[in-house]
């Protein structure tokens, strides 16, 4: 039995490690110097999915990512760590998408995957830090959302009866409203000033914080098994003597979907589906100002302290 879990993952430039070579002389970002990585909180999300798979044998973890062809790396990385399969959503029609257009495209892909119990994503991606795609995917799919999750405490199959301790009359509601409810999840959320525990029916969307446990490392067996996993474009791009292993081993095939593979209304995609527009981009350049240099010498330090006391900055 088990559960079907979709993990939303994004490939991002590693903006956390902006070293000296990452800034050009004119103060602009040297994007080429930033490595592309698995968005850190999406790894926290993957770990929560893998823990559910450990706990409920027979569960299946699927990675869904949207991006350029090279984003297939994110799917391979997920497979190496314990995921079972992946979908890459890639098309020029998605270029220029803001969070809403991105969420729309992802929700259409999820509708095509169709059979799922749970969608888990990182809270936010480090290149934008918006935290919007999770809730917007939930809204587009008309599913409940639980953001800022730190731990999935339990996942129970079946509809909760009306007299359940949580007092959520799921059974009655599901019948009356013709809702698709597969079961109930109990989740701990980490908020800025505390924690709360919520109970939600699933299918639903959960976004996971960095405060959740780190993702397990790659598993050597999984690396051996999946190192030749490829998308159809990657196979086509190989030279002629490349041995395509996906024919004999279908699990090595990473599904690649373009706009024509999913059902969409193209006016909600890319630039036309994005209510927000970027009017202006400014590179941040440090403006040097005259600073007074002081050495680690007691007399000089004392002079500074006395000056600060005299002008009432301290004391």
């Amino acid at each position, binding site marked *: 039995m088990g559960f079907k879990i979709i993990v939303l993952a994004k490939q991002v430039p590693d*903006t956390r490690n*902006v070293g000296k070579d990452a800034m050009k002389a004119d103060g602009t970002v040297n994007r080429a110097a930033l490595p592309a990585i698995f968005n850190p909180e999406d790894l926290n999300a993957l770990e929560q999915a893998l823990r559910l798979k450990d706990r409920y044998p027979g569960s299946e973890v699927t990675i869904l990512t949207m991006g350029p062809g090279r984003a297939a790396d994110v799917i391979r990385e997920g497979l190496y760590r314990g995921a079972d399969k992946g979908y890459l959503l890639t098309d020029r029609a998605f270029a220029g998408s803001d*969070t809403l257009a991105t969420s729309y495209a992802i929700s259409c892909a999820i509708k095509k995957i169709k059979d799922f119990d749970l969608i888990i994503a990182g809270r936010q991606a480090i290149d934008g830090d918006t935290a919007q795609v999770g809730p917007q995917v939930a809204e587009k799919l008309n599913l409940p959302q639980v953001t800022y999750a730190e731990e999935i405490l339990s996942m129970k199959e079946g509809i909760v009866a009306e007299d359940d301790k949580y007092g959520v009359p799921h059974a009655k509601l599901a019948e009356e409203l013709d809702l698709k409810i597969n079961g109930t999840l109990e989740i701990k959320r980490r908020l800025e000033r505390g924690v709360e525990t919520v*109970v*939600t029916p699933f299918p639903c969307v959960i976004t996971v914080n960095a405060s959740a446990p780190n993702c397990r490392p790659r598993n050597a067996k999984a690396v051996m098994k999946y190192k030749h996993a490829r998308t159809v474009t990657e196979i086509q791009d190989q030279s002629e003597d490349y041995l395509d292993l996906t024919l004999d081993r279908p699990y090595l095939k990473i599904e690649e979907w373009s706009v024509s593979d999913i059902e969409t209304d193209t006016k909600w995609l890319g630039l036309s589906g994005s*209510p927000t527009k970027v*009017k202006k*981009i400014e590179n941040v350049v440090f403006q040097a100002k005259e600073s007074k240099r002081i050495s680690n010498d007691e007399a000089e330090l004392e002079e500074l302290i006395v000056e600060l006391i005299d002008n009432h900055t301290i004391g």
Partner: protein
Amino acid sequence: MGNVFVICEIEEGKVADVSLELLTKGRSLANDLNCKLEAVALGHQIKGIEKQVYPYGVDILHVGDDERLEVYTTLPYTSIIVELFKQEKPEICLLGASTLGRDLGPRVSSALQSGLTADCTSLEIGDHTDKKAGKDYKNLLYQIRPAFGGNIVATIINPDCRPQMATVREGVMKMEVLSETHKGRIKNIDVNKVLKPEDLLVKVIERHMEKSKVNIKNSSIIIAGGYGMGSKEGFNQLYQLADVLSAEVGASRAAVDAGFAEHERQIGQTGVTVRPKLYIACGISGQIQHTAGMEESSMVIAVNNDSNAPINKIADYVINGDVNDIVPKLIKLYKKNTK
């Protein structure tokens, strides 16, 4: 044209600081646009809440008072606000970039197919010309925010969709009373009419909220430590310096990630923004992510052993040397000169 709306957050009967900061900003935007400032307050037994918000210039307060709104959950709050906005057609909607605002904002924006910009650091009114479409737009909300890890600053606009939505972190905008005698009026929301059974699918069964112990936002002197403090023990020396100077201790993201300090002390793009009169940056290199949250400090002293550290460029004084050596010296010299 619609008005400027602010969604207020209420915790234990008190309107959150971030909401009052947004009301202050909302008032000034409403003045620029020559429209009204409206606020939304949802909760349970919140009679009298208007007294907290009117002084900030609120003209109309929409109140939804219902047991089912006592604790925030996504779906009922979304339904009520979406319904309200369909009627009122706001021009602008501001929310705190808090766990509540960042949960509610995107859901509402998706339901209304309107644009939302997260974590804005500045909001202004301005015009825009779309040369391709040959269209002129007057009085748009410029939503200005850092992006790409703080290395660029982007100005975002929503030319065609309303409301223009934005979230702002606590401490970024200033909080200022307009007038103690300013009065608005209340419009009650018919909660029963809006809420449907399926809005109540998610239940909060346990909640532990703590009052924030750290108050770096309002401290006039901040001693901040970075990864360069080397260890938690090294970082802990800063509390002693803070003690003698009656200061508060802040931290860079690197120091928080390394476990030297708790997250509520984090200053910068993903933490709080501070404007103290004195900021002492110890072992902080000064990536833009950090300086974005402290560059408005009146005076900056940088203590580090890297003469090329970016923080030195915005510092008034640079003390070059080992932080673990200099911090105890500063404590000793301060005590000596204040006796």
